[in-house]
């Protein structure tokens, strides 16, 4: 059978990470995929070398719009290591409110995207309505709904009020309820099962050998979570539970994220009860000179392990800052996940790693044999996959339902 080449990407640069995929397809089945990166390379590592330590925090924050808190916190945590200062406990608690609230926000956003990709827009509305509550909390906490600059070198930037904490506790309870609702729904709904079960399976060996991180790895039974391996900030004492699913398909990854919402809500409730008094930060001059040092900072971002490496030769600016984002680690596993899948499953499989590329804008179909090219928009691809599933659902009964 002659093979086709199907180009997916490079998508919408303003919102999430743009990326290109060239799928080699035989009929409806995908045989191979090639990655095409670099559409939105902004040279942030070089830029960070030009900025002072404090300015860098705000640059790092803008690496990602969704997990900005994780980047900001990870950067500040690393620079605290370089300067060898200990932030006060209350500051770490406030920072963790940001991290966990962000995880709930990111997972709810992702759930909505995932349901949307599979043609279940009602649920998309549900999850995004719940996500709105996290945004409101962020607005009250920091004054901004996205990119909230909660941390700073030496602690947190803003204090929280008692009023906010009681509100946080109430909302955490709500998120827990909703997570239970989504879990029940995902496990019982025929539409969701048809599109998620046994789709894009990442086997445990592949997840290990390709060094997958975050919910992508945990959905394949790999116990990887920075909060579990190297409890940073206040996670040692918090009621954190590691969530692992064994199956490795899109359904397992969905369940991992839904259960993580529950765990995060529990941590938030605990924080609201246990937050100590005292200072929120150690003051450090914005023009402070760092000692010669070398530090690694790791944080569990919503998508997985986030690593910052700092090299300081002493002075106002870092000598080198290296950032490894979780999506970069989860790109290779896509190749394993997509092999042997249907074209109609592309949106769900790619979305299942939560790649920040949920808005691919164009798809190019290339017929290699005849040299024909066909360009489809993302909307057309989704429409195509919905139609294909309506027509072929009966044949899939044994496989998915």
């Amino acid at each position, binding site marked *: 059978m002659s093979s086709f080449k199907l180009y997916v990407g490079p998508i919408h640069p303003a919102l999430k990470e743009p990326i290109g995929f060239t799928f080699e397809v035989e009929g409806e089945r995908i045989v191979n995929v090639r990655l095409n990166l670099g559409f939105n390379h902004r040279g942030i590592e070089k830029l960070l070398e030009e900025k002072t330590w404090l300015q860098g925090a705000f640059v790092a924050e803008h690496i990602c719009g969704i997990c900005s808190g994780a980047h900001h916190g990870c950067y500040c945590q690393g620079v605290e290591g370089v300067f060898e200062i200990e932030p006060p406990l209350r500051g770490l608690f406030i920072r963790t409110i940001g991290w966990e609230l962000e995880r709930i926000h990111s997972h709810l956003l992702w759930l909505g995207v995932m349901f949307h990709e599979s043609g279940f827009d009602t649920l998309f509305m549900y999850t995004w309505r719940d996500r709105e509550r996290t945004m409101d909390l962020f607005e009250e906490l920091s004054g901004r709904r996205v990119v909230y600059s909660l941390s700073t070198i030496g602690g947190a930037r803003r204090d929280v009020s008692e009023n906010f904490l009681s509100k946080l506790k109430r909302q955490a309870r709500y998120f827990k309820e909703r997570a239970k609702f989504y879990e029940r729904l995902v496990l019982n709904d025929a539409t969701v099962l048809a599109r998620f079960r046994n789709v894009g399976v990442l086997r445990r060996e592949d997840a*290990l050998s390709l060094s997958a991180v975050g919910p992508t790895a945990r959905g394949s039974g790999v116990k990887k979570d920075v909060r579990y391996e190297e409890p940073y900030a206040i996670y040692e004492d918090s009621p954190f539970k590691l969530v692992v699913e064994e199956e490795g398909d899109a359904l397992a990854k969905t369940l991992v994220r839904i259960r993580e919402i529950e765990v995060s809500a529990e941590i938030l409730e605990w924080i609201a009860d246990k937050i100590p008094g005292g200072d929120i930060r150690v003051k450090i001059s914005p023009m402070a000179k760092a000692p010669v040092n070398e530090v690694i900072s790791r944080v569990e971002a919503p998508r997985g392990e986030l*690593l910052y490496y700092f090299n300081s030769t002493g002075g106002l600016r870092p000598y080198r800052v290296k950032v490894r984002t979780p999506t970069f680690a989860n790109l*290779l596993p896509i190749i394993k996940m997509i092999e042997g899948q249907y074209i109609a499953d592309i949106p769900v499989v790619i979305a299942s790693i939560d790649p920040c590329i949920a808005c691919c804008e164009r798809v190019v179909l290339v017929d290699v044999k005849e040299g024909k090219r066909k360009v489809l928009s993302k909307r057309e691809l989704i429409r195509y996959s919905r139609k294909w599933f309506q027509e072929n659902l009966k044949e899939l009964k044994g496989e998915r339902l």
Partner: protein
Amino acid sequence: MELSDIERAVKALDPDASVKVDKAGRAWIKVSADKIKEVLRELKSKGYNHLTAITGLDQVKEGVMELLYHLLPESKELPYLTVRASVPREDPKIDSITDIFPAALLYEDEVYDMLGVKFVGHPDLKRILLPEELPEGIHPLRKDFKGSIYKGVSK
């Protein structure tokens, strides 16, 4: 398995290797560049089965290009480990570790793209983030890179 076992295993392969532990409890091992493959294979068999990242570090003063391999252990007893090796800055070349850690495929591409380190044995070394049509020898994270850097609006 403890860090001392790891240290012994690495020193058996490379007698000049040196180990240090930083304040956060993370370990750093310095090995010579021609032993990097054997050392990483040994470390993988000892439980360091996850490669988090490869950092390239341009040490202009020493005239070397340093490569840092960040490794995550399987068990919680072992510390987070960084293996470092230096190659000459003028002709940076090192063995590719893609056959030991397939995850290194993208990371090695990235280091080549940004710093121009050539990984011998990499199946398809190419520019991954910067435009492919960029001329050879342009690697922006090198400290001697003279490119246009935005300095803000002049007043």
